[in-house]
């Protein structure tokens, strides 16, 4: 009974791995990424002389 049990466990494993697959990653919006980067860089920049 060992081998049938192994086959059933693997079949359940494949099914779970397929059903619980995470959704495909959405590509990052380039504008948002550059905005965030810019904000972080800006924070490090010294205040312009007035």
């Amino acid at each position, binding site marked *: 009974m060992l*081998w049938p049990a*192994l*086959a059933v*466990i*693997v*079949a359940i*494993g*494949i099914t*779970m*791995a*397929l059903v*619980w*697959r*995470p959704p*495909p990653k959405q590509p990052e919006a380039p504008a948002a990424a550059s905005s965030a980067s810019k904000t972080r860089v800006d924070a490090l920049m010294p205040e312009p002389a007035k």
Partner: protein
Amino acid sequence: MSVGFKAVQWNRQKIVYDAILLAGVALFIGTYMTVGALRKPPADMPAWIDLRINAFGTCAFVMLTIILMIGPLARLSPRFLPLLYNRRHFGVLTFLVALVHAWSVVDWFSAVGAMGDLLTEMTNNAKYMQFIGFPMKALGLFGLTVMFLLAATSHDFWLAFLTPRVWKALHMALYVAYGVLVMHVALGVMQEDRRVFIPILLGCAFAAVTLLHIAAAWRERETRVTSRGWIVVGPPESIPDKRARIVVAPDGERIAVFRDGVQIGALTNLCAHQNGPLGEGRIIDGCVTCPWHGYQYRLEDGCAPPPFTERLVTYRVRLARGVIEVDPAPLPPGTKAAIAVPA
């Protein structure tokens, strides 16, 4: 035959088998990498290594699937027996292909300067508590370790050292390794690559291995037993000449019932050498010949011809109302038990 020791008993059939194997592996990997490179040209060295990882990994998985299909296919039809011969070399080559796959993974992490990430992934205990996100490389490493053990102990020396029973039990671990490697693919590439053919091919490979084993086992269940406990084999002509029909005793023991012209005899299905499937062999030069390594036994008494000394368990057979029957009670090894039936 068993007298003397030779490192590798090469013959023409083994050389042809290995040549076809090597050519098949080279063709598979070459085609995979060429098509992959043409479809999406790798931009840098890590991309090339990535392609190599996929090519060798896919090849190793396909080879392992084929290896596990050979046994039940040979039990279902003698046409597949040539594949059974020299299957050990098939297994060792599969391990080497899988080893290149694993080495390529390490090579990739080295090329991108992220060896620490590989170590972190393998040793992150929290990930081992997850299902999706389980460290799939650990599954691959487990499968590779089992394949290494089997490849390293494939030589006859280990068979003698471990005894055939332990050796065969150890080599059954390949089924566990296959199950783990199926999950390695399901939790690895199937999670990263959304293309639909990956789960389909993975499911079909696993289903093919499973269904073939069920079919082979189901066929052997079709055993009829008389009221006095003898197993019904069938009319003499239902046993192919120079070949055997395998029946299963109530205790699960397989018995190979051979016919050599008008002579019919029953032997254990386990070869004295490596527990090979004797009933899948045939009669050559008047002797029952194991399909694995050519060990030979006389049909009449299960003894290897002189100067060899192996002896097999035999079983009584009789012809009752035109039907061959076998007594499932084993006789001492080397006992004469074959009968002659009317031509």
